[in-house]
């Protein structure tokens, strides 16, 4: 236990050295914080229709609405305060990203490790399927599945998982295949320990680092993919807009110069995605022994 925590401490010390990555991490945490406490810090509850007035719709940033307070970032076509809508949208985007990321991680890892551990026919079948899927663009796959399943949170997460589990399966398979051939796994299998225990206790933990890296990148990708699908009108229903939906709602008004409805939610989205990617890059570099001095 103590070696593990000192390992973590070393990891953190190295991470802290990269100021850009540290700043990105702070941004990610801040965004999660905003999403978690959206209902407490938002000036307005954007889902409460009683709170909204059409008189206030599409107003520019700084407009003082009929509610008496200032809309710092303006309002959207439904008269929602854009800042509040962004906080709530962040919540939905992060929720979907995390849910899709973790379900894909679980399914993909299980498949990849099963393929590497069992070998033979199972390996051939699973990996052929995964490779086939990886050759299709994720956006197209997600688009098709959403079109087939219809709209809704669960359907959307299902589509994102179906589009992304293959990346985890590939990564887990590669790592597990390499570990499987090492002596310590052979030694563990030679003892009376059950195969399942060896997989859980020895194989899985040693495959974790590359999976963590893929997970951070894929969470960012899920968020981006969800936003894209919502923008195309295939994501979530309009009543609970994610960031992509907010951008999509504002798009028709952009031609007439009402840029803020699309631009500010987009800025929030970009900051979130870029920050997660920077953190992921740094973690990857730290796990990569080739880049170690």
């Amino acid at each position: 236990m103590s070696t593990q925590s000192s390992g973590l401490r070393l990891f953190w010390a190295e991470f802290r050295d990269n100021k850009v990555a540290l700043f990105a991490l702070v941004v990610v945490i801040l965004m999660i914080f905003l999403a978690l406490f959206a209902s407490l810090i938002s000036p307005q509850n954007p889902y409460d229709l009683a709170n909204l007035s059409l008189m206030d719709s599409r107003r520019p940033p700084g407009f003082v609405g009929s509610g008496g307070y200032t809309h710092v970032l303006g309002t959207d076509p439904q008269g929602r305060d854009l800042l509040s809508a962004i906080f709530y949208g962040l919540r939905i985007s992060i929720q979907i990203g995390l849910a899709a990321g973790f379900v894909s991680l679980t399914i993909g890892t299980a498949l990849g490790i099963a393929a590497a551990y069992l070998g033979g026919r199972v390996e051939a079948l699973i990996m052929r399927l995964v490779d086939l899927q990886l050759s299709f663009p994720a956006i197209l796959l997600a688009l098709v599945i959403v079109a087939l399943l219809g709209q809704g949170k669960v359907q959307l997460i299902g589509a994102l998982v179906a589009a992304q589990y293959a990346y985890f399966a590939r990564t887990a398979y590669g790592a597990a295949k390499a570990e499987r051939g090492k002596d310590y796994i052979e030694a563990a299998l030679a003892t009376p320990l059950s195969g399942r225990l060896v997989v859980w206790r020895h194989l899985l933990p040693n495959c974790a680092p590359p999976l963590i890296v893929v997970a951070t990148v894929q969470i960012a990708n899920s968020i981006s993919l969800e936003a894209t699908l919502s923008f195309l009108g295939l994501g979530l229903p309009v009543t609970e807009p994610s960031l992509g939906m907010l951008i999509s709602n504002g798009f028709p008004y952009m031609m007439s110069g009402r840029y803020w409805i699309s631009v500010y939610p987009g800025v929030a989205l970009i900051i979130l995605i870029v920050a997660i990617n920077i953190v992921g890059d740094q973690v990857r570099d730290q796990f990569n022994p080739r880049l170690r001095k």
Partner: protein
Amino acid sequence: MLGFVIQRFLQALAVMTVMSIIVFCGVYAIGNPIDIVLPPEATQDIREEVIRRLGLDRPLFEQYFIFMKNLLQGDLGRSFVYNIPVLELIGGRLPATLELVLISVFSATALGVTLGIYAGYRPDSWISKTIMAVSVLGFSVPSFWVGLILILFFAVNLGWLPAGGRGDTVEIWGVAWSFPTLNGLSHIVLPAINLALFKLAMMIRLARAGTREIMLTDTIKFARAAGLSEGTIIRRHLLKLISIPIITVFGLELGSTLAFAVVTETIFSWPGVGKLIIDSIGVLDRPVMVAYLILVAFLFVTINFIIDLVFALIDPRVRQESAA
């Protein structure tokens, strides 16, 4: 080698069959297209007549077999909405998409490789660092957002370029193209930049990584020792050596760019295949959805098949592995 080709071919065929079943069942499981085809005040008699004429009263597997039979004869059905053969509909939209995709991919490759070689050749200069920073953005910023900003900037604020549509077209051999006219060309610029950005970022990274690796090899050292100028070394040796991975990725990306065009075409109302499929999903035009998905699956299965073959030709280990 022949055994390998046959094996891969059968595999591709099996994948296509499975895909067609999934797509067919999936697409036919959603919604009721009758509501879209008919006005709400249509009588029951008309309703039943239309259902019969579209073949929607038969069991699903029968519909599938009819569909497959027609498919093998090159008939993908008629669009519910436009009431013309789907193949004609998609074929009519294809030139617009191809035009956009080819212009984007070619310009992204040309520019990306140039910038990537520079960034790999002088990794420490500030220009290289700027190039790499831009490529990171190209990777992580969702492309629909870039499209919006392009419209906001160049179409709304500056008013330099049109925000959507295809502009004037010229007919060449009965097919309309935008690129030969100045007006059409101005319509292509923004969507092409939008579509190209991701590819550009990727080409920069590929070319840079290749350049950095190859500049350290003996080939380059000997070329320098032989007194060749740096320009000659880059043109004659470096470019040749990095071109192999770039050509591979280029081929792969051509297919995925067709898929990405869905987003770009929607933003810029570019009347291509991507816009058609999004519109068809919106109105549940089943024959168009099925046909598009099957054509795309076919495209990707074909690309993979060709890549497998090429790799097998280059690398004998691949052949042996699959024979075992």
